[in-house]
């Protein structure tokens, strides 16, 4: 398949590997009943990495402060669950999720103006700075947030009034996975549309993007706001499913981990963040079992190897392999 026909299928249809991936992900709910808490964690990480991919992989905005939105989402959902546990509507996790997304989006929109211009380095510093400010505000507002002790007494109601959160994480994992899937579908639609092509155009050549009429700033504001909303949803999921929100959800380390997942998985194709989150969480789980102290050492080492020898991350490697096997069909 070539030319227009190939373009059409790539920009529209679901590819076989997408279907396989999601079928496998949902099958895990049944196949791995003892690892549902891990699955829940992976889905949440994946959503955070996916949202970062939208701005980094597609729009080319590097960020070291994505945890700001994650944390804002976590506290918003946590506070709603805490104070509205008697309220059927405001206490519902899905409503909490929506309000968390909205709150994170507002903060994302407001701070987007700071990342419109400037070099990668300025953007790194600005995003880092915004996250530090948000974290410090959360710390100072300890009568609301619980400060360094974290937000206690988060008691989410059953999802949609029907699905109680259970000890094994069945509801949690299902809920997070469904939210991740919906976010993926939205992100997929966005990047496969002219809007997404425009983002890549801005990433590759801002001067030319402007010259063909793309309102660059408006587009960057839009995608930054959307990414913030999705990151806020990831934070909300974590707060709701672990019944806790804490300052470390706003931490630099979390932003760095999200970036790491993208590097591991490969940026700019939506799946990189998902695969990166899986590898990261499993590596975390396995390496911690072997060497509780030094798991970050091994993670760091594999990171260096990846960046030196496989810049495109796992998805880049897979694509390379696929091209070997089927030179004509490779995506």
């Amino acid at each position, binding site marked *: 398949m*070539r*030319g*227009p026909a*190939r*373009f*059409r*299928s*790539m*920009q*529209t*249809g679901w590819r076989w590997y997408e279907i396989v991936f999601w079928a496998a992900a949902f099958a895990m709910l049944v196949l791995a009943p003892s690892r549902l808490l891990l699955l829940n964690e992976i889905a949440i990480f994946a959503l955070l990495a996916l949202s970062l991919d939208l701005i980094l992989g597609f729009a080319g905005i590097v960020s070291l402060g994505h945890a700001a939105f994650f944390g804002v989402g976590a506290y918003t959902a946590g506070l709603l669950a805490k104070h509205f546990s008697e309220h059927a509507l405001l206490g519902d996790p899905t409503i909490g999720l929506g309000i968390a997304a909205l709150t994170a989006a507002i903060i994302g929109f407001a701070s987007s103006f700071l990342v419109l211009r400037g070099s990668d380095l300025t953007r790194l510093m600005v995003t880092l700075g915004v996250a530090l400010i948000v974290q410090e505000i959360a710390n100072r507002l300890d009568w609301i947030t619980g400060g360094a002790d974290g937000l206690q007494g988060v008691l989410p109601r059953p999802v949609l009034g029907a699905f109680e959160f259970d000890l094994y994480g069945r509801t949690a994992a299902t809920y997070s996975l469904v939210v991740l899937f919906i976010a993926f579908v939205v992100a997929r*639609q*966005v990047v*496969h*549309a*002219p*809007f*997404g*092509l*425009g983002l*890549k*155009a801005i*990433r*590759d*050549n801002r*001067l*030319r*993007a*402007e*010259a*063909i*009429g*793309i*309102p*660059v700033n408006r587009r960057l504001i839009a995608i930054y706001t959307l990414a913030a909303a999705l990151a806020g949803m990831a934070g909300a999921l974590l707060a709701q499913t672990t019944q806790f929100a804490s300052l470390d959800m706003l931490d630099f380390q979390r932003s760095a981990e999200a970036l790491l997942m993208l590097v591991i998985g490969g940026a*700019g194709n939506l799946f990189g963040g998902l695969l990166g989150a899986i590898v990261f969480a499993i590596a975390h789980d396995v390496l911690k079992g072997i060497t509780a102290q030094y798991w970050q050492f091994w993670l760091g080492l594999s990171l260096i190897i990846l960046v030196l020898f496989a810049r495109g991350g796992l998805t880049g490697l897979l694509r390379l392999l696929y091209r070997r096997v089927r030179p004509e069909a490779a995506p």
Partner: protein
Amino acid sequence: MTNPALETRALRKTFGGLVATDTVDFRLEAGARHALIGPNGAGKTTFVNLLSGALQPTSGSIHLEGRDITAWPASKRARAGLSRTFQINQLFAGLTPLQSVVLTLAQAEETGGGSAGLMDLFRSAGSNGARIEEAAAILENLHLGACLDKEIATLAYGQQRLIEIAIALAAKPRVLLLDEPAAGISQEERELILGVIGALPSAMAIVLIEHDMDLVFRFARSITVLVNGAVLTTGSVAEISADERVRKVYLGEGEHA
């Protein structure tokens, strides 16, 4: 009396002490086939950058079809029908030619505006079959049919040069500025470009910057000569080729100055 397609009044641009554009009054009629010539460093590219909005002038004004666009950002000028190519390729390296042109077509259609345009922005790019075919046709017309879905970064320089033009045409401009489109490519590709430009709609106003006087004379009906940022003279092809000063500062330097 109709407005000119594009007009500048006392347009000026300085870089520190250097006057790159020196009080230029320029007038381009609708449907013009105009060449802008002058030795290297004369300020041709700077002038195009000012027109397209890539640079802000120090003083003076720019008018597109009668509207003062001096304060407009480049993207707004593009949406108003002003399209350009770059002397040094400015392409979307990670996209394919087909993606680049589809994107530009979508962008040009969105300019139509309204909520329909906004909806289209988020509809799968692959769902608009007519647009994809149109993009493919634009590229095939420039003999790029064999590399529609190759990453632009992997293509040869000559092909990239043609993609420069394909993107500019896909914007469906009413005013088109071509900054040395045929520089550094094969004779065959130069002829191809000249053919494609020659077949553009007659209502489109076109400015061509080009050093090869043979190409200039075959394309242009009128010519502006720029020297040291200022207009030396403007006139018909016959007038310019007969002008003593032009021969001295420009033609005298040989064809590939």
